[in-house]
């Protein structure tokens, strides 16, 4: 074995998986995991822990994998993370734990994500649950939203003995894990539902179909329902559109809508009652992880798919692994290309998209080179479906109905990064509702920090 090389992880063949919704990555088995774990040199001053937003004791759990004691490895992880099977799959490890791994200087870093996934999957298959609180505190905390931030915050508070209720607006808990990330990256019933079961097994209650700001308000939860503290992890919000002509034509969707239909409503499955457009040629506008998810979903529904992005490959905000997977499966990348108009027929159906070629100029305020229009380079792409994946703007439902809850100029809730404290007493917030669209693990980090903040507050510290 070459210690500089990681143990490769098995994947579904690209051509085969491009036609199904089963998981792309098949994960390690125990032998592979133990072999990969044996590459870890158990650094005293472990940089990987510093790279993890929830500070999992990474060398600690890997040590247990090395020993073959997977149950012990699981307990080490669950001290810090409520959703290891999710994180092992969707965290950008290359910029976090694995990005800091000492092994990575000369060779491949340890596959920490794949090991975490193996441990979590093994624990689930062997019915091992995280350990709950020994003593109850008799204090009620409400958590708004059951996405990664909310689940993490709720799990941590429940472990500390708080009586936690999560309020979820949709009919199913999980937030972006359920409506946003596709089945082929994150299986819903096998992985997400089980992780949520684990959080519930800690004593957390989940009430679905409650829209805070409409069904009830933050103030009512505190004044009438006896919640002593509240965590808001309500997520990203309203999808952005480009504002170009023709955007309301039939066949133009937000990535949120397209993915929600496929993931939450399961419209990729014939048994679902919710329809989804089965385009023949689909353009996905944008270059983030959500764009990759939408593109790979459209591909699996039988379309020829083009990613249309105005900068070059180097600037794509999506994870390298996602771009790589998308390319392997046959998604076509039209880079340095920007849409200017969507064309439609007399009945309003999309027939094409006018685009213009771009080139990279000087760096802009984001540090990335600014895309500049190449004059007279307009052309028309023939497409029947356009999916806009341009990010989101905050949902005002909660901030506009809560007294004393301040938002910033982007309408995100203002909260202290260290403990999630907002401008309203007893109310904490974190995740996309505070930062704007980011990653699952950053939301979990914020949920974790807020749980600590809430515990300090309710303990009178």
């Amino acid at each position: 074995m070459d210690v500089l090389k990681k143990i490769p992880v098995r994947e579904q063949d690209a051509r085969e998986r491009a036609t199904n919704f089963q998981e792309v990555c098949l994960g390690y088995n125990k032998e592979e995991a133990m072999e990969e774990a044996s590459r870890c040199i158990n650094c005293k001053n472990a940089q990987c822990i510093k790279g993890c937003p929830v500070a999992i004791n990474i060398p600690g759990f890997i040590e247990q994998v090395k020993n073959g004691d997977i149950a012990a490895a699981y307990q080490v992880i669950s001290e810090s993370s409520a959703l290891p099977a999710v994180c092992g799959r969707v965290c950008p490890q290359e910029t976090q734990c694995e990005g800091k791994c000492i092994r990575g200087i000369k060779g491949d870093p340890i596959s920490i994500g794949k090991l975490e996934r193996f441990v979590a999957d093994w624990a689930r298959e062997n019915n091992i649950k995280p350990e709950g609180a020994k003593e109850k505190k008799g204090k009620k905390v409400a958590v708004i939203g059951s996405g990664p931030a909310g689940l993490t915050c709720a799990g941590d508070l429940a472990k500390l003995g708080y009586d936690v209720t999560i309020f979820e607006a949709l009919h199913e808990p999980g937030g972006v894990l359920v409506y946003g990330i596709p089945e082929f990256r994150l299986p819903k019933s096998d992985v997400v539902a089980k992780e949520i079961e684990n959080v519930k097994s800690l004593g957390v209650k989940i009430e679905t179909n409650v829209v805070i700001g409409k069904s009830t308000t933050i103030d009512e939860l505190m004044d009438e329902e006896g919640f002593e503290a509240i965590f808001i992890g309500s997520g990203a919000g309203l999808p952005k559109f480009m504002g170009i002509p023709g955007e309301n034509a039939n066949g133009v969707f937000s990535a949120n809508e397209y993915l929600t239909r496929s993931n939450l409503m399961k419209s990729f499955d014939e048994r679902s009652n919710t329809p989804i457009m089965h385009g023949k040629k689909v353009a996905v506008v944008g270059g983030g992880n959500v764009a990759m998810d939408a593109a790979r979903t459209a591909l699996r529904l039988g379309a020829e798919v083009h990613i249309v992005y105005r900068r070059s490959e180097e600037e794509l905000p999506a994870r390298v692994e996602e771009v790589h997977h998308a390319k392997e499966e046959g998604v076509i990348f039209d880079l340095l290309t920007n849409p200017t108009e969507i064309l439609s027929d007399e009945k309003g159906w999309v027939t094409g998209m006018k685009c213009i070629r771009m080139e990279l100029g000087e760096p802009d305020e984001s540090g990335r080179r600014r895309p500049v229009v190449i004059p007279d380079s307009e052309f028309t792409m023939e497409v029947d479906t356009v999916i806009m994946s341009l990010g989101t703007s905050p949902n005002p439902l909660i901030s506009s109905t809560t007294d004393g809850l301040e938002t910033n100029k982007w309408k995100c809730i203002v909260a202290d990064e260290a403990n999630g404290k907002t401008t309203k007493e007893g109310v904490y917030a974190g995740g996309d509702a505070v930062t704007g669209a980011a990653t699952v693990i950053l939301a979990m980090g914020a949920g974790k920090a807020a749980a600590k903040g809430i515990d300090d507050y309710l303990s009178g510290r």
Partner: protein
Amino acid sequence: MYKILKKKELAANIYLMDVEAKRVAKTCKPGQFVIVRTDAAGERIPLTICDYDREAGTVTIVFQTVGAGTKMMAELQEGEAFHDFVGPLGCASEFVGEELSAIKDKRFLFVAGGVGAAPVYPQVKWLHEHGIAADVIVGSKTKDLLILEKEMEAVAGNLYVTTDDGSYGRSGMVTQTIKDLIAEGKQYDVCIAIGPMIMMKFVCLLTKEYQLPTIVSLNPIMVDGTGMCGACRVTVDGKVKFACVDGPEFDGHAVNFDEAMRRQQIYKTQEGRAMLALQEGETHHGGCGNCAD
């Protein structure tokens, strides 16, 4: 679970249900809507609230079976329950948020078409309870499809019923009744029209001539109903709005109805197939001439 305490067939394929939904019943207001699902695989169906009883904790919905989803709703019986029932969603009717003194002298004209009588009812009732008598036109294709006549009569100032075929009340479209009333010398300050998109479009074209401000309640395609998906976007005064959070009520004179009607067609083919599958089960494999394969 959200138990159905009462079910009544108001007319052929039009049903009324009282559903136990305490949180919704406690806070809902006229103009708002709910989203329901019949079972774990069901689609999310938005419905404007028809009535509510805060003490009993119930919300009344009225729906017509038009597709597979509403047909499955109609199969639910008293004592059974909806899998999901979420709300209230959207904004309340504008007048609910205004000072009573500002609206008490306003002359309201409501125009309801078909099942649109259901969302009009709580608005007229609210005004009635606040001492304001509104005139109401209820239009129906034919006598047998007329709904909520007695209920509406009890809360309206004047009720004018018209049927397209003249089988009951006045004869002709609701727009004809509006013309007649104004020709008789009636004067109004605001019109609220709720019904099929095509009816609202023509009411708005007419009231624009009279310079009568008109509010419409739109029912575009929706998924989540909380602003997250953007399926329900409509163009109002040249700007894109999300009906679920910015509406569902808008200035009818500023709505782009042609676009809104086109957008309602997006899933018509697939909905038609789902309906056939529901009616005929596994036996439908094309060849009917209505589906492509």
